[in-house]
């Protein structure tokens, strides 16, 4: 049973599905109640098999059936779709009109690649702790917006395994949103736009009018994120190119010529100094004058352009969009897509997320410890019983609410292992289950 590398051998994946993947939790989370309902039975699962074969429209009667099929196919990952009006596996036998997506979690996807034009540390598929700050800011804004403005409570944030984060909203109203309403929500939350050749990508107000509701609430938060992230860490406006970037974002009619002169004369100025120059310029112009107001508004718009969440709106707009299931393994990195606590998002470091290999090794070690403990441990190997043995009383309460076989990765950590303890998502799981009663 020794799987030493983090490599994603089919054997390691199979062991992960057989011994670790929390099928029961996924079932309860999707199903909203203990007995299988249409929310699970009519739910689409799509598998990506080894060699990129893609199987759509699978559906299952219960968690065990899902587990059995996953262990048989041993996919590299699988995705969750909507609840249809009929069972997806019967798709070919029902009339197309009788096969429609009805309900689905409202989902959001934030991906680091959309930040390529504003991050200087990495690009494309790479991610480091410095770029994670962008994601952390996005999570704070989005989490607050969804809870406070839209009034949804059952939010589950999941690390996507490489360079992004997913949000699943399971409130009943959110489940039932039409595509039109989803599109509205996605566009409401999209502030930065315009494509490659657009320079000023934030156009949400006219002139120097106040920011519209929904955005204005967050400007203070983002103005706090902006200096350390953009001015210091990323140093986005350094050099001549940076100065040009910044000048292009300032309104032409706000008397920015002195700034241009200053910066061409002294191209070595840091981003922070340039930002201060703009601020001084506002003072010179006077905050109450038309051009002073314009410049202030432009500064806010710049903060938004660099830090506002860049969601992949297409994912959110359609009920039948598939999204990778939580706890799947990212095929390239081997990291598990673990739930993330939005209130502690700043502490999250993608580099410390456990990989399959690491987890399996820890399970092996735990088994050895159990064996040394005595005969009792030996009967409880491996799998579900292992988890129940390690369950603490506090967690048992939450498990009771959710039905038998409740599971958490936290439980299976030997006490000396710290790799997962940072997430402690067990405590939070009950909040993800909306009550239907």
């Amino acid at each position: 049973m020794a799987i030493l590398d983090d490599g994603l051998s089919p054997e390691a994946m199979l062991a992960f599905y057989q011994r670790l993947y929390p099928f029961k939790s996924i079932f309860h989370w999707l199903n909203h109640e203990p007995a299988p309902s249409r929310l699970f039975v009519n739910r689409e699962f799509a598998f990506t098999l080894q060699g990129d074969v893609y199987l759509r429209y699978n559906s299952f009667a219960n968690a065990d059936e899902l587990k059995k099929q996953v262990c048989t196919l041993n996919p590299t990952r699988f995705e969750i779709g909507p609840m249809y009006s009929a069972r997806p596996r019967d798709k070919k036998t029902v009339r197309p009109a009788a096969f429609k997506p009805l309900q689905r979690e409202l989902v959001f996807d934030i991906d680091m690649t959309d930040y390529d034009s504003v991050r200087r540390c990495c690009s494309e598929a790479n991610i480091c702790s410095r770029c994670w700050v962008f994601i952390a800011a996005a999570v704070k804004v989005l989490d607050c917006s969804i809870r406070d403005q839209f009034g949804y409570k059952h939010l589950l944030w999941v690390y996507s395994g490489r360079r992004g984060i997913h949000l699943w909203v399971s409130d009943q109203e959110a489940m039932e949103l039409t595509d039109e309403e989803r599109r509205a929500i996605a566009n409401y939350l999209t502030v930065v736009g315009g494509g490659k050749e657009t320079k000023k990508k934030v156009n949400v107000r006219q002139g120097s009018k106040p920011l519209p509701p929904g955005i204005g609430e967050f400007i203070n938060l983002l103005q706090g994120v902006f200096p350390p992230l953009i001015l210091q860490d990323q140093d986005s406006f350094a050099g001549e190119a940076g100065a040009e970037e910044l000048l292009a974002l300032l309104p032409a009619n706000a008397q920015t010529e002195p700034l241009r002169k200053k910066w061409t004369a002294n191209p070595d100025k840091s981003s922070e100094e340039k930002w201060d120059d703009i601020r001084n310029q506002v003072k010179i112009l006077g905050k109450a004058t038309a051009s002073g107001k314009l410049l202030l508004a432009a500064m806010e718009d710049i903060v938004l352009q660099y830090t506002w969440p860049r969601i992949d709106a297409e994912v959110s707009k359609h009920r039948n969009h598939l999204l990778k299931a939580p706890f799947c393994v990212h095929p390239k990195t081997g990291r598990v897509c673990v739930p993330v606590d939005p209130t502690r998002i700043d502490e999250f470091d993608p580099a410390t997320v456990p990989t399959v290999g690491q987890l399996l090794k820890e399970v092996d070690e735990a088994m050895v410890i159990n064996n040394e403990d005595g005969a009792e441990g030996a009967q409880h190997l491996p799998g579900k019983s292992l988890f129940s043995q390690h369950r603490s009383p506090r967690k048992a309460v939450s498990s009771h609410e959710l039905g038998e076989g409740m599971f958490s990765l936290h439980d299976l950590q030997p006490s000396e292992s710290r790799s997962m303890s940072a997430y402690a998502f067990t405590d939070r799981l009950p909040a993800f289950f909306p009550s239907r009663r």
Partner: protein
Amino acid sequence: MFKSSSNTRDDGGSSTGEVSRYSTLKYPHRLNFYDKPPLGDVTIEEFELFAIDRLRVLGEIESSWARNRPPEELKKIVVEQYTKYVPLDSNTAKSADLGEQRRKDHIGHFVLRLAFCRSEELRRRFVKAETALFRVRYGNDDALERREFLKSMMFDWSEMTEEEGTSLRDKLNTLEKSADSNVFLKARWTRIPDLVEKRRVVLKGGWAYMPVAEESALVFNEFQKTLERALEATAKALPRLDEDARIVPLLNNLSQGFLSGANFDWGSSAASTAGGLTADMIDEMARKHFPLCMRYQHEELRKRKHLPHFSRLEYGLFLKVLGLPIEEALIFWRKSFSKITDDKFNKEYKYNIRHSFGLEGKRANYPAKTCMQVIMERGQKDMECHGCPFVTFAPENLQTALMSMYNVGSQDMGEISHLVKGQHYHVACTRVWEISHGVKKGAGLDGESVTHPNLYAAKSRELEKARVKGESGEDVVMAEG
């Protein structure tokens, strides 16, 4: 629904049961939410006539959209049309037979429901056109009567309370229409997704707060949703109507008339005649005939050896309608994506290309995007390059692009920038066509302006063909023709 009553329609409230409820004062309001079916006898002639008259109005609305008429003009035309075919006068108009007018409006609507409830596509179009008609009528209804009508509907949105008002005051003041509003409304946000999308409401805990001036949006959304639901219910009940041999053929006729009347997608017929392009001709074609949006994507493709999804779709459909057959399209994309393996290409791209030609999935023959769609569906992400460059490009990037690709001189540049600033994107594009084709200003594409990227390319090719013909004095067959 039409066989429910034995009463004649001019019963003066003397009848019994259900009918009497409607017959005393049948239609107190000019506007109608069509939430109650008409009761009473309808002759088969009226049944058909009322429907056809209403269909004329709806057909005109659809064709106005297809021709991209501005809202003001659309409104004018709709008013003209319905005063001619389905007039509705306000309560103060004494001369007209109000009851009869409103009965016609009512019955016509319900007959068309029967005709258009059968497929999703028909339902969608019917709802869209009916809602537009309702909007126009709502807009020019007498303010007092409209208030009465709204009161009678007893909608379930409410006025904002004092406490809510004080806590949200600051945010409400930033809304566009709240300047002189004292009354604010409160409704679940899902009732007005369009206002949420445009950030014209304040959201708090899933409730949307808005100035009373936005009430019309609530009414229109309610109208649309009620009608959608009703159509689906009608669709389910429709099979029971099949018994009547007189009505079914009539309904079939009506729905077909609607379908054939308003198919303005450019290019579905032109595609078959153009044909004969090959993959290696595209480079030259792009230089000579493509509008900036497509030219830009083509250059990006050459530069990056790749294009993002929406570009592949937009540019791919453009090439399809231009006359690039599927075999050549596959060669074109395969060669263009030179950095990826055959295996990756076959797995990730081939299906979508075939899909856009109607060879996979639901096998629909997708039309190329019109200018309207290109303008609306602009890219959001950094690497995306679809959409209308006149909209998306920063001014200096646009100027550089026009100068290098279309030889637009500085004397014309000012004019084009001005047009772009005034958001007359298609006029700017038409001007570029004129300049680059040496046609005098205002001549356009044979008098038309650019409304479709394929129109731009087709007219450009036609012109070239005509010129070659003119120069050599004989019938020369162009390489791509």
